[in-house]
């Protein structure tokens, strides 16, 4: 199979937010994700980076239809998920799973590890039988690096890294094709982060998984991703292969992000050129006209205020896409 496993076309998620007083109140859309398109190949990892509030997590949830998209298509293996009825969508859920940022909060504190990991099995394979289910759960626990003897313990008895492994085991137990990782390592220690990242990469190799890896840590994304997408205020700024984006970031925003990554060498770190952005993220309720990044962009011109830059190829032929009027400069 050579086609993409997942393709997203012009995905929009707008939330209606009530503004104003009790009487004169009206609803105004908050554009959390505004026209995002991308494709994901089998076995590929797409890293999604951006500041807080740029719509990374919303995008991940909209792909899974956990948040209903306002507009656009999410095509999963040739089927548009938005047009499936509830039952058909439920059946699709065994093929795509999610792991969360807060490892402990994503586990029901009143269930044992065995119950948590086996819940998808109970849902999708109700006739499986207790012994078979237990065997599957233990097998999965071993695969994610948990001792199978711990099957009857409760989540609070585990450390953050172990809880994240439990979350991964739950996501993996049905053998999904896609896992959306919503900042899976942000809440963990650096040493544990490496373990979890390597575990995800190993599972990807073993099962041919596709990953949508959401993070704000560029070093982590660089390690795990094949391609990287940079989001700003719900819009794609740049999307390219890992090597290409780190070697030659085109978009001013991507440049600023990459220059902010600390280098683990004090001399280099001291002498490197930093692109410091001015100001704060504008309110997504009232995004700037034209290019959403122009208010903080060092290259902004009048054109940027008038016209929204299209997402275009940089001409190198490796599908490096940029949304900027001035990327050539």
């Amino acid at each position, binding site marked *: 199979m050579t086609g993409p496993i997942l393709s997203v076309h012009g995905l929009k998620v707008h939330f209606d937010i009530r503004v104003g007083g009790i009487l004169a109140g009206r609803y105004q859309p908050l554009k959390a994700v505004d026209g995002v398109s991308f494709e994901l190949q089998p076995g590929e990892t797409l890293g999604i980076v951006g500041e807080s509030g740029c719509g990374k997590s919303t995008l991940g949830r909209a792909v899974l239809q*956990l948040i209903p998209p306002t507009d656009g298509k999410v095509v999963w293996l040739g089927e548009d998920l938005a047009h499936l009825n509830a039952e058909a969508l*439920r059946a699709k*859920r065994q093929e795509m*799973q999610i792991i969360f940022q807060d490892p402990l*909060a994503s*586990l*029901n504190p*009143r269930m044992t590890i065995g119950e948590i990991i086996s*819940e998808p099995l109970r849902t999708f394979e109700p006739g499986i039988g207790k012994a078979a289910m237990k065997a599957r759960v233990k097998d999965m626990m071993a695969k994610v690096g948990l001792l199978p*003897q711990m099957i009857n313990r409760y989540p609070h008895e585990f450390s953050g890294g172990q809880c994240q492994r439990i979350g991964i085991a739950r996501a993996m137990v049905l053998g999904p094709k896609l896992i959306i990782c919503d900042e899976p390592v942000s809440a963990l220690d650096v040493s544990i982060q490496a373990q979890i990242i390597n575990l995800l990469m190993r599972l990807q190799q073993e099962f041919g998984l596709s990953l949508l890896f959401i993070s704000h840590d560029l070093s982590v994304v660089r390690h795990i991703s094949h391609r990287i997408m940079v989001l700003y205020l719900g819009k794609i700024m740049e999307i390219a292969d890992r090597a290409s984006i780190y070697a030659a970031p085109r978009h001013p925003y991507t440049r600023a992000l990459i220059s902010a990554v600390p280098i683990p060498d004090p001399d280099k770190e001291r002498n490197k050129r930093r692109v410091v952005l001015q100001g704060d993220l504008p309110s997504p309720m009232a995004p700037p006209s034209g290019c959403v990044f122009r208010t903080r962009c060092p290259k902004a011109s009048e054109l940027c205020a008038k016209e929204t830059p299209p997402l275009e190829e940089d001409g190198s032929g490796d599908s490096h896409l940029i949304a900027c009027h001035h990327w050539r400069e």
Partner: protein
Amino acid sequence: MIHTTASADAMAGMEELEGRSLWQDARIRLFRNKAAVVSMVVLGIIAVMAVLAPYLSPHPYDEVYWERIQMGPDFENAHWFGTDGNGRDLFVRTLYGARVSLMVGILATTVSLIIGVTYGAVAGYVGGRVDNLMMRFVDVMYSLPFMFFVILLMVIFGRNIFLIFIALGAVEWLTMARIVRGQTLSVKRKEFIEAAHAGGVSSVKIIFRHIIPNVLGPVIVYMTLTIPQVILTESFISFLGLGVQEPLTSWGVLISEGARVMEQSPWMLMFPALFLAVTLFAFNFIGDGLRDALDPKDR
């Protein structure tokens, strides 16, 4: 040699814990709680005495002894708690009162628990317009005067002790529903609910498997507060002549009678009040124990 034993010990320490459900776990932890166990025993004794009341005393509960009116405890005639203002044996009347009071307390609370928890969890989980509609209905019910409601039921269905259960249950679940709805709102945004949703678990199962077990703590505390409240409300209704009718009695009725004559014959207040107090204490300790037992973090 030393090595092998050490690793064997390590292996023994790594043995799988026995698989237990939340309820089995809770039972074990509850039985480890001494106050709760003592309370359960005390409640059990009171309940058994209430059931066996006719066999524990030589006197029937409605027999009037004209020669022994409002008399203190008298062991010669087997009036262990004395007699009331109509010359009836107080011991057997207290035990008959226990039947009514315990039944009202437990049944009405159970009714309010089942309705309130389900209603509140559904309203909180579904949210939006459904939530608004359901909670406004609760508000309307709240604003209905309770006595009006009871009198209405009496007029329609006639005087019947089971109407008390219905009336009390129908009123008590309102607060429970509000508490559960609030708790549900705070639980439903947690990531494990989202994970269950992403795992294709149906909404009904999410409510019963994930939400309700996680709101049990406040529910049980409120339940232990509801039982005494219900018992006392029942005595109020009976006092107005709408509840239990003479010669049948309840603790509430006995206490209100005793309170009127507490200066001349304190035993008429003391004994029923003692039973009520002990029962309420026991329910509170059991509630406390249950709350701790149902929380896996508390070992």
